[in-house]
């Protein structure tokens, strides 16, 4: 991915300015980046991790990769590789370039809300089961981004919680889709009508994890989404309302 080269450029810039890339040394160094430097470096890191998340201009690769991949590939892709973007935001972008985060947060909110609502709306009209889960994971990971950039503790906690919960639940959903694909060799939704008659345990499990996916109260995603909503609401109520619309849409596509 060519966007990651931006991070390489900024890592070499940090290396040339501070002469180290050791993370605790970066945190404790006396050298303070000027605002222009922070904006440039933060932008480079943001583009790199946003490709991994994926946020809206860079999100095309994810559904294609999920559809082509075998079960195990999409499990690893959805549960861990998507978390790398959120982990990068949490670990590198927030502590190293705080001014850049404050400066860019309106843009990030806009992108994040667009991604959440766009991904939810395009989930509704998918017929491939893997594509449905892929688009819903785009929506969830963009809620994680909103939580991370909400600049308070609730949002951060909720983002972290939602990342872990989404890691578990998307894994379960992809495994279940893999089980069904092994039996029927199709992933199209319309051929799965009446599945609960022939595979009752499978059907109930799938229903349970689908509830978990849209954050039914009592599941882990609910806690994450509620914390993110509280966190964003302290910052900006309008964004919180848009995110709430995103959550309602997620309930729509899951059912």
């Amino acid at each position: 991915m060519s966007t990651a080269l931006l991070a390489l450029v900024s890592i070499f810039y940090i290396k040339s300015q501070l002469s180290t890339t050791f993370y605790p040394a970066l945190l404790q160094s006396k050298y303070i980046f000027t605002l222009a430097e922070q904006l440039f470096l933060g932008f480079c890191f943001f583009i790199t991790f946003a490709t991994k998340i994926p946020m809206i201009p860079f999100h095309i690769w994810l559904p294609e990769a999920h559809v082509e991949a075998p079960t195990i590939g999409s499990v690893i892709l959805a549960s861990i590789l998507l978390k790398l973007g959120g982990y990068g935001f949490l670990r590198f972008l927030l502590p190293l370039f705080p001014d850049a985060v404050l400066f860019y947060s309106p843009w990030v909110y806009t992108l994040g809300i667009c991604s959440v609502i766009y991904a939810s709306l395009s989930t509704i009209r998918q017929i491939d089961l893997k594509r449905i889960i892929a688009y819903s994971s785009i929506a969830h990971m963009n809620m994680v981004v909103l939580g991370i950039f909400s600049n308070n503790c609730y949002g951060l906690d909720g983002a972290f919680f939602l990342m872990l919960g989404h890691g578990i639940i998307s894994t379960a959903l992809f495994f279940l889709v893999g089980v069904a694909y092994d039996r029927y060799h199709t992933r199209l939704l319309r051929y799965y009508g009446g599945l609960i008659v022939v595979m009752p345990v499978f059907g109930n499990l799938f229903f349970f994890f689908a509830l978990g996916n849209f954050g039914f109260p009592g599941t882990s995603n609910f806690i994450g989404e509620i914390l993110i909503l509280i966190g964003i609401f302290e910052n900006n109520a309008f964004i919180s309302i848009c995110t709430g619309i995103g959550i309602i849409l997620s309930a729509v596509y899951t059912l």
Partner: protein
Amino acid sequence: MGNFSKLFDFTLGLDGITLLFIILTASIFVLCSFITHDLDIGQKLKSCLNITVFFLGALLFIIFISLDLFLFYVCFETSLIPMFFMIGY
């Protein structure tokens, strides 16, 4: 030569954020190895897939526990290569 080796030494570390990700990664890779075991493909292809999966797992562990920005970047990019082979096998 001393400078050269100094360029490539790195430090690993673990904290609260990383620990949960490590647990998540470890449990998911155990499940993935179960799935690989049951796949209905040839023995040679299966062993290739196993190698890819464990290589990817090692890379992800290094990504999460690396305390060095450059090492993080290198593993972040290298993890795309086994992913490419896994998607296209």
